[in-house]
């Protein structure tokens, strides 16, 4: 009995520290996000960080679906675009407040995802990939062809900046804090979700849908729910993008961007929220370095996708974790020998 107690206690203790570690990591990350701009005063890199924030939101959203529930989507740019267009159209044509537009954009996207989620997520594997891809292309065509509403291929300009009383978010500095506040919130909530019964049920679906259902997990509903959550986050990112850029055009929401999002998630690490940040950061900064390569960048993307999938399926974050774990065990073993 005593032994049992000890064992239980031991396991509980290690998992407790895991939770604590999670909190500490998040606090460090938040702190880093908050102080970074002070080192970048007046630098263009602040602007890049704004886009990294938006892309992180998108990658986290897709990761919930792809990395946790194991359901692929090759059309996620559509929800990003829907958020941007709903927000853009409501503010430019109907004079709505950007905040209200953001909420409506998220709601519209969520409702759409919920409705199409049931038939789409019934599909599996390659079929799901093709169906989501088709959905993405249909949405792109709608953005592109409903010229009277969206402004068509030449875009929609004059979208107002977000405003809180007299504070207008019209420069990199204020946009950075606005977008990263929301990004951090999205990350925190996603981490919470991933560590809860819902997160476990999602991963269970990814591993064995049949077994998950036998254990009482309503796989169909849960997949649709997470698809909806993912669409809502993407639409929020889209709305923020529209109000930051003040100009949007369909080209930003096409098939290529959907693939870019998948690449972010894969490169960063499936099922890792910080991995999504890493993937988003790399893919946003990468063009800077690939500029030297000029036209070769497309080849680098292709190679990256293939090599990562073949040799590092856990993404860069798992590579980093392995290195950290290795160093950690070295330190521990040293500490152990002293004790």
């Amino acid at each position: 009995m005593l032994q049992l107690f000890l064992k239980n206690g031991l396991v509980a203790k290690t998992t407790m520290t895991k939770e604590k570690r999670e909190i500490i990591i998040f606090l460090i990350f938040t702190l880093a996000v908050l102080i970074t701009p002070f080192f970048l005063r007046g630098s263009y890199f602040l602007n890049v960080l704004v886009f990294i924030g938006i892309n992180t939101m998108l990658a986290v959203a897709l990761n919930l679906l792809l990395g946790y529930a194991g359901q692929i989507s090759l059309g996620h740019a559509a929800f990003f675009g829907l958020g941007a267009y709903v927000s853009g159209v409501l503010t430019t044509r109907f004079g709505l407040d950007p905040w209200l537009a953001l909420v409506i954009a998220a709601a519209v996207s969520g409702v759409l995802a919920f409705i199409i989620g049931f038939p789409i997520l019934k599909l599996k594997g390659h079929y799901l990939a093709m169906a989501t891809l088709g959905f993405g292309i249909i949405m792109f065509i709608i953005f592109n062809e409903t010229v009277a509403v969206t402004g068509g291929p030449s875009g929609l300009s004059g979208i107002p900046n977000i405003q809180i009383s007299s504070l207008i978010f019209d420069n990199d500095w204020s946009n950075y804090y606005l977008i990263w506040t929301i990004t951090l919130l999205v990350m925190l909530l996603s981490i919470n979700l991933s560590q809860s019964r819902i997160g476990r049920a999602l991963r269970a679906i990814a591993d064995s849908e049949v077994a998950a259902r036998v254990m009482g997990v309503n796989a169909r509903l849960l997949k649709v729910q997470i698809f909806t959550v993912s669409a809502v986050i993407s639409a929020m990112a889209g709305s923020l993008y529209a109000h930051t850029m003040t100009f949007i055009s369909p080209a930003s929401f096409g098939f290529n961007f959907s693939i870019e999002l998948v690449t972010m998630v894969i490169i960063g690490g499936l099922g890792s929220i910080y991995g999504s940040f890493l993937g988003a950061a790399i893919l946003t900064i990468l063009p800077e370095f690939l500029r030297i390569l000029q036209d070769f960048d497309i080849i680098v993307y292709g190679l990256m996708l293939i090599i990562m999938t073949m040799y590092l399926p856990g993404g860069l974050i798992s590579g980093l974790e392995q290195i950290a774990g290795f160093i950690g065990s070295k330190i521990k073993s040293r500490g152990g020998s002293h004790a």
Partner: protein
Amino acid sequence: MLKKMLGLVVSMMVVGLMAGSSFAAPPIKIGALFSVSGPASFLGEPERNTAEMMVDEINKAGGIKGRKLELIVYDTQADATKAVQAANKLIKDDKVVAIIGPSTTGDTMAIIPVVEKAEIPLVSCAAGIKITDPVKKWVFKTAQNDALAVARIFDYLKKQKIAKIAILTVSDGFGSSGREQLVAQAGKFGIQIISDETYGPKDTDMTAQLTKIRSGGAQAVVCWGTNPGPAVVARNVQQLGIKLPLYMSHGVSSLKFIDLAGPAAEGIILPSGRVVVANHLPKNDPQKKALLNYVDNYKKHYKVEGDHFGGHAYDAIMLIKGAIERGGDSPAAIRDQLEKTSKFAGIGGTFSYSSQDHAGLTSDAFVLVQIKNKGWTLLK
């Protein structure tokens, strides 16, 4: 950090070297944003080539008042997000005094808020009328407005007593802007648009649209797009045996189009910048010298024909050069001098900017050309 230090060391070395030479003054930095890759690379590539060629040329000739130009080019991939990032980098990191490009209307619209805020003059190479209408303080453009091209065609149609037309436009930025102008101006010329069809930029078969147009009773077909779509349209028109006269936009005024459309290109009429017919121009044409010079130069450097897209970049560089020569290299001075540009004979036309007009061209910027024997003839 390391990179920054390295940069510092390198730049100190460069400064040291420069101090010993006669070029004491630092170069004037000009930024350029072109869609070198992506769906609008047919614009961005000749534009970048031309801009680089012109800057080399200017520097070889001793620069502007003894100071060299430095051109910093970034690729926007016709992606608004990348365009905005690159514009920010040019302004904040590279500290350029002026920006030329971007190549597309979408990219230009995306970066206008950025340049307006930073107060850096922008000379866009895109055609959309929205860019300079309404006038924005810091934004100019060199590409001829679609409106001028449409007016040129409609003027000719009116003379030919054609009153009913069909339009077939591509569903991208170029096509939708053209479509807008076609619809807007038709009434003014007493022209009625009988059929209004579109096609996708990647479509490879337009027989369905053309069949519909054929049965609609139009007297002429106007197609608005850039390669390769219009070549497919020309071939499909031939395949279907449609006898209606076919008009195209300045988007295809390059030899590439004639090559793609093959025999189907014969007889097509389109508005074009003067660059393709430089040889046929009368001696007293003010643009002739610049055109011939540009065409020869481009061919020498890149082994292919220069087109009027590259010409937009030529004009942008030369306009900025003129402004710097007249008023110095501060962004505000460049802007002010750009606005005072008068009768600059470039590739796209003769530019005269004013505080009410930042597009600077009249319908005179276009000539009508017809394709005959795999070449261009000037239509009077």
